């Protein structure tokens, strides 16, 4: 009898554990992407050339924006912007040219995100350069791409991701865990359509 009871208890514990493990995944539904509004502040976390891939389309769509490679919380405090897009992935060359290190970029970006969240500015984290900005081709020991992603994406209210950069599910996992809407696109040129929809153009 005792043995049966123990077996039943073990079964109940197993089912409960499995339910706890599986439930969040099973229950996860993609939240709707928020509407983004202009004016937009575009910056990077890591001084990559990625922000230009956003700004060329913003320009073509006629969406008001400023690109500031060194944007800070003061830019947000100016209350000029309604959306901030932070492009993740780092460029050692870009940081070298700007005379900054990864720790500076992480601190600067944290300030931008905190200020934006306080003032109700929509924070969109973007990763739009594929695996080239996922440490592929980086120098040995350089994990600045991943630091950049960790600093921005979990704190964002929207993720914009080129699919090939998510081939290991990195951004899908962040989106599910933090319940952040994620918009994924296939080709570079598809980004124009993504921005068009987000900004209701």
């Amino acid at each position, binding site marked *: 009898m005792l043995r049966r009871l123990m077996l039943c208890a073990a079964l109940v514990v197993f089912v409960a554990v499995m339910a706890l493990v599986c439930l969040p995944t099973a229950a996860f539904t993609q939240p709707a992407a928020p509407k983004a509004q202009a004016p937009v502040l575009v910056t990077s976390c890591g001084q990559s*050339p990625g922000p230009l891939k956003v700004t060329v389309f913003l320009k073509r769509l006629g969406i008001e924006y400023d690109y500031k490679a060194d944007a800070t919380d003061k830019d947000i405090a100016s209350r000029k912007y309604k959306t901030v897009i932070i492009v993740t992935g780092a460029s050692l060359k*870009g940081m070298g040219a700007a005379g900054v290190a990864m720790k500076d970029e992480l601190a600067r970006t944290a300030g931008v995100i905190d200020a934006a969240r306080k003032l109700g500015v929509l924070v969109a984290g973007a990763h739009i350069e594929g695996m*080239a900005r996922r440490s592929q*081709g980086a120098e040995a020991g350089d994990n600045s791409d991943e630091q950049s992603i960790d600093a921005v994406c979990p704190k964002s209210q929207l993720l914009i991701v080129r699919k090939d950069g998510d081939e290991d599910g990195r951004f899908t996992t962040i989106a599910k865990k933090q319940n952040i809407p994620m918009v994924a696109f296939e080709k570079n040129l598809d980004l124009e359509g993504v921005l068009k929809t987000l900004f209701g153009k």
Partner: protein
Amino acid sequence: MTTTVRLRKIGFGALALAFLAVAGSSFYHQRYLPEAVVLGEGVTAVTRLSEYGESLRGTANDIHLYVLEGKAPGGTILVFGGTHAEEPAGRLAAWMLVEHATIERGRLIVALSANRSASTVTRPGAAYPPEFTIPTAWGGQRFRMGDRWTNPLDQWPDPEVYIHYPSGQYLAYVDIRNLNRAFPGRPDGTLTERTTYAFMELIRREHVDVAIDLHEAELQYPVISTIVTHQRGQDMATMVSMTLTDLEGFKIGTEFSPRNLHGLSHREIGDHSQAVSLLFEAPEPFLDATRGRTNADVLLTGKDEFVVQAGKRGLLFETIDEHGWPIAKRVGRHTSSVAQTMETWTEDHPDRGIVARGIPRYKDLVRNGVGFYLRDPAVAPAGRVVYE
């Protein structure tokens, strides 16, 4: 002196003269190997760089400039290959433009051998082949295999330190003969500086809107498979890179020209003229320090097992496998990038558009090979062949 010693001296002397004759003949033939250019239907004029820098007249760098002018007015684009003559994809891509492009609107100016002097010498001690042949249906066309630097026969000696003009920046001594460290040049400087000065005058006087410098790079160099752009060309380069990556089947990135590194075309042309300056880099395993045999086969196939091994050890900034980086792919990257630049420029500047047709693009070159697009000078119309 004994008879034996005398005979020995004569023997060694004769041997030295024989080596001298063989080597001298090889150097002579390489320096004077004529390279035929069949002018395509689109070429409306051929002029010389000395038109823009009188002091170049009669020198190795008084190069041909090929002008392709459309019937409709528009913008002007300058494309130059051969800045570094050991990067043949740049020269061959320029050849494709001269032999095949037709301009409907605007104007295209092409230089095949921006530093012609550098194409008349190979790298001492590096075992570079003196020439290479591109196979064609009509037998094959020979090209000089050059070096990165102006021939010391044309510019010598080098200083202890090269002080770049006008920035005053200190650069490696040998780069005083590097065309891509000598922009914007000066009219009374070295041959290399006078050459870049003439290019700058050409760009200013002909109101060039976009200047493109075609290069190749070793796979161990971080700036590879990319468009290096002056800050005024960042939007265009980004759009060109995205479009090529999406539509043409090869990946190409963008890099920004460092503001504090002087002498390079992408920095100085943009700073000292109205033109937007871009530099395209294609992968050339032949240039990698870890390569094995250094011969024309490696140059053209881009296959090298040692460079592949370097890739497996994570030492490269571009992928490579046993298929290598054949010359057709490298030339095709450049021709497609030039064509796409014209298209993007025209979209953004409809009042100064440049519209071309007939340029063989990446897929064409990969499918048919470079030789397919080289024209046979033997059957060219009279007066339509120029020798580089």
